[in-house]
């Protein structure tokens, strides 16, 4: 029974949290690709920027003495998301729209997004320095423990309060996005433009408005994902730059341009990574006598330092086997 609890703590909880962060990041990437047909590399740094904005707001709240049952990071989240969305609109108007007007190819937009990535990273480090910060300098990180002794488990199922809130927030956002895309007029217009941009224009859809809405959603979700990542680990300037790869992998695996695909892809990559670095020896020990080989030390599919490569290996397999992804997004 203890082995099962160990598995739940280490894989189920960690995988869900990681999956939700990747999913929120991947949704932004896939929406931008669906509408504007280019891979937005600066998305990782938009997440980091969102995290820092939330951090500043949280610090202001703490200074003003505002606090609540929930970590201040979550209280300020809506405001931070709004601010990041506005900045995302500004970025598009300043860097991407002028190039689009001059008929730049998607590749040029991709290179422009590298410029934006570097500028955001430079600015973040300029204002916040390079040191690692945490949301929980002032307030403790509550740990929730569920006693499993009634099932004979000697150890409790443990996860932190932010992790619980994160999963809830992700579910709420995914459901809200689902409602927006399936019920609202603008949401359907976005899906239409992602499906067939020419026909959308011919139907009278105001494409400029759809582009603006796309950036607002992508910016808001990026901020949310960045803040959650910062709450889960800690806040550093290259916080999200390291997960640009898994986010793109999730978006492609899910099928570029398909929001639901991005959610599925995010969780798939999240769980794959946690499973790959999971130490199976704990689970296998009770079955030692039936196993041919003798368990010594840890057995994991992939040593922990290769965790990042797991996302990439999945990406290459998907790109080769089924380039349109699970939900039939844009093909290669």
């Amino acid at each position: 029974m203890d082995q099962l609890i160990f598995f739940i703590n280490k894989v189920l909880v960690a995988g869900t949290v990681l999956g939700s962060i990747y999913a929120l990041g991947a949704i932004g990437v896939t929406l931008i690709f669906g509408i504007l047909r280019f891979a937005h590399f600066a998305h990782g740094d938009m997440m980091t920027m969102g995290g820092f904005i939330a951090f500043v707001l949280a610090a202001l709240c703490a200074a003003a003495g505002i606090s609540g049952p929930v970590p201040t990071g979550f209280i300020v989240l809506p405001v931070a998301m709004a601010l990041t969305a506005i900045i995302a609109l500004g970025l598009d108007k300043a860097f991407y729209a002028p190039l689009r007007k001059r008929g730049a190819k998607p590749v040029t937009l991709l290179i422009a997004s590298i410029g934006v990535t570097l500028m955001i990273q430079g600015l973040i480090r300029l204002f916040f320095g390079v040191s690692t910060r945490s949301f929980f300098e002032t307030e403790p990180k509550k740990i929730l423990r569920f006693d499993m002794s009634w099932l004979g488990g000697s150890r409790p199922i443990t996860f932190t309060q932010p992790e619980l809130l994160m999963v809830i927030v992700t579910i709420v956002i995914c459901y809200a996005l689902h409602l927006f895309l399936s019920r609202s007029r603008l949401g359907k217009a976005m899906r239409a433009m992602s499906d067939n941009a020419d026909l959308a224009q011919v139907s009278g859809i105001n494409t400029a408005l759809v582009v603006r809405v796309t950036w607002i959603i992508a910016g808001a979700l990026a901020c949310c994902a960045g803040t959650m990542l910062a709450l889960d680990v800690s806040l550093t300037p290259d916080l999200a730059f390291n997960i640009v790869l898994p986010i793109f992998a999730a978006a492609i695996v899910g099928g570029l341009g398909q929001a639901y695909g991005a959610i599925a892809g995010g969780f798939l990559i999240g769980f794959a990574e946690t499973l790959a670095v999971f130490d199976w020896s704990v689970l296998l020990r009770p079955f030692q006598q039936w196993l041919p080989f003798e368990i010594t030390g840890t057995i994991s599919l992939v040593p922990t330092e290769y965790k990042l490569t797991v996302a990439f290996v999945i990406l290459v397999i998907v790109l080769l086997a089924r380039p349109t992804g699970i939900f039939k997004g844009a093909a290669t």
Partner: protein
Amino acid sequence: MNLIELENVVGGYGGAPILNGVNIAIEPSDIGVIVGPNGAGKSTSLKAIFGLLKVTSGTIRFNGTAIENALPDKLVPLGLSFVPQEKNVFTSMTCEENLEMGAFTRRDNFADTLAMVYDMFPPVKEKRYQKAGELSGGQRQMVAMGRALMSNPKLLLLDEPSAGLSPRYVIEIFETVVRINKAGVGILMVEQNARQALAFASKGFVLANGQNRFTGTGAELIADPEVAKSFLGG
């Protein structure tokens, strides 16, 4: 007063002009049909009206107001609607969502128009929650035309609606066009099946090399042996 009037329109996709002075005019109640050999500039004329390519000279007037080079999202509220020949449905969206996209520019309640479109296209009503991509060629064409009707247009532009359809569906599509026209919508249509389309056209235009060759009622053009020969040159 003419519903739509093209006066020696010249234009193309930026390279050599494809339209070299096209003149077309139809009344609000007309069914206008444009026919002619391939590469005569038929579809190009429709795209010129709908602002999808550059008109370099000549004028296009809709209900008297000049609209050349205006963009689609300005033309749809005016009462124009366009059904392209290919890729004319949102394949990943349900039939109902396709129709709703047609009404994007409308602020008022379009439930009655939706009902009208459904009883005009019963198969679309049956499959309203099915993805448009899963429908057959003929049913897709109905969804495409339904989507175009959702903006309550005064003039409906159709680009080769019968292309790639089996003969049975061709007849069905043409009967639908007549029904739509009787419901008070002007039609300007480009067609490959010249004879069948001209049979119910109140105005016919034969184009060749981006210029008018013959103009008259549908019946006159079918009777004129020169018209049939013009398709095979010589």
